[in-house]
């Protein structure tokens, strides 16, 4: 700490001056919005009501009875799980592989590169790759003699198509986080495991993976948040369709707010999204419990 610099009341003045600017921004654009969306979620507010009308829990109840809402929630869960698990698994495997070969920096760089592509550009690139007739993916399937797929245009595959593009973009980034974690694992542990006769697979299963716990938590939390932000791809690749087959919570919220201008319902969806995020993050931290305490110190 900093002794003798600013004794007494001065100290608190300094602290206040140093903290207030950032706290003001946090308050105005994070905490006030959270409170105001919970508040407005109890009102009906749309282009047909002059002043918001208090309706209690009605917005929530209407969503609970709305099958589209449940489809969107299901999509969101599928989207999250089906992106997070493969992304993490690929990231982990490639981190371990890259750690054990020469040419590290080439492979690191090329696997990370998709991460710098803006989502709007990613969407366009993949719309082309998925193009049913001239798109390279279907051409490639055709070449192998496999049946081609409707990808973005089919309600069976639209969500999957977006998920694949997400995995492509992000696994290199998570791989880098795992690689950073790997640098912290002492080589001695591998040597003693080898002396004990542990195979390559066993060394990684029993040394690497447990010791990468904190990295895994970080990756998990970041990817949960990612899955709630995936608006750009949905809007540019499928507009949530066909039907609602690839709509996720953030897109659904956007439609309520800025297509139908139903701000009350949009606030309800926002509140549900905030609650889900908080719940998932608490769950993740609870799962890893103690490990994170030393990591966050």
């Amino acid at each position, binding site marked *: *700490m*900093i*002794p003798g*610099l*600013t004794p007494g009341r001065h*100290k608190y003045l*300094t*602290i206040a*001056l140093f*903290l207030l*600017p*950032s706290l*003001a*921004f*946090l308050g105005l*654009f*994070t*905490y006030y919005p*959270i409170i105001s*969306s919970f508040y407005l979620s109890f009102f009906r507010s749309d282009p047909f009501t002059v002043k918001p009308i208090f309706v209690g829990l009605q917005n929530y109840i209407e969503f609970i009875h709305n099958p589209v809402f449940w489809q969107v929630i299901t999509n969101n869960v599928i989207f999250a799980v089906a992106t997070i698990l493969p992304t993490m698994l690929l990231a982990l495997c490639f981190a371990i*592989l890259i750690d054990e*070969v020469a040419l590290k920096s080439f492979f*690191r*760089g*090329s*696997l990370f*590169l998709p991460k*710098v*592509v*803006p*989502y*709007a*550009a990613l969407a*366009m*690139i*993949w719309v*082309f790759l998925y193009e049913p007739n*001239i798109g*390279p993916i279907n051409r490639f399937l055709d070449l192998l003699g496999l049946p081609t797929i409707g990808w973005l245009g089919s309600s069976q595959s639209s969500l999957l198509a977006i998920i694949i593009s997400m995995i492509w973009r992000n696994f*290199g980034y998570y791989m*880098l*986080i795992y*690689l*950073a974690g790997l*640098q912290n694992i002492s080589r001695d542990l591998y040597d003693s495991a080898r002396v004990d006769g542990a195979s390559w697979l066993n060394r990684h299963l029993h040394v690497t993976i447990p010791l990468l716990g904190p990295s895994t938590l970080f990756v998990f*939390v970041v990817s949960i*948040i990612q899955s709630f*932000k995936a*608006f*750009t791809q949905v*809007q540019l690749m499928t507009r949530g369709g066909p039907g609602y087959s690839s709509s996720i919570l*953030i897109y659904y*919220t*956007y439609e309520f707010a800025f297509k139908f201008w139903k701000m009350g319902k*949009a*606030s309800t969806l*926002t509140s549900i999204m905030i609650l889900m*995020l*908080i719940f998932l*993050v608490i769950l993740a931290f609870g799962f890893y419990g103690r490990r994170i305490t030393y990591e966050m110190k």
Partner: protein
Amino acid sequence: MFTRAGKWVKYTILTIASLITLVPFYFTAIMAFKAPKQILSGRYLLPPLHPTVDNFLRVFGAAPFLTYLLNTIIVVTGILALQLLVIIPAAYVFARIDFPFSGAIFGLYVIQIMLPLQALIVPNYRVINTLGLVNTRLALILPFVGSGYCAFLLRQTFKQVPQSLVDSAVIDGCTHFGLIRHVFLPLAKPTLAVFALISVATHWNDYLWPLIITDNDSVRTLTIGLGMFVQHQSGADWGLLMAGTLFITGPLVLLFLLVQRSFIESFMSSGIKG
């Protein structure tokens, strides 16, 4: 398992993976330089025999991409500058000064990391509307300034500064500002560089917020410009679309390739990890 066969398996897997990550860039690039006729020809997935910049000229003719580029640069640098301006002092206080409730107050910053602004677009739209800032560049900047992520990273970094350095600077008569400027910031350079890149890449990427908060070309940024451009194109003019795509991606890819090695090294050694 460091046998020759194991090694070849590893290289093969990594090479295939690299191909999968790099090939889409290749397609984007070759399409952007092809005339429409060539795209529909049989060898359309091979490099163009007669590369043309026509597509780029048509893109610039159809939408003000240079204005978008300028706006993007203003917005991303504005965000980064303000983030550092307000967060550096806060991170310094959290890292180096003891005071009651510091943990709880810092918690407000950490929670913010987990609540992306995208989730809060509806209430934030109302805030910006109340402030009368709809359709301004300022509206594209302000919501991102209070970055919990920046606070978290810098606090970690500032904590690692040796106390002896701080002590001697204090004896030399350094004030808080002097300490931050001459002791903490120089030592935090790698973290600052990594954060700067992440911040720029993140906000270069912003789409949803600009989509709802802007409604004319004079304030629009590249990503949203591309989105609008795409929606105004009828039919699939792939050369044109890929030229636009390449134009908004190119600067970031170049920036990354330039600083790749040092970025990855400092990314891995700074606090940005699990």
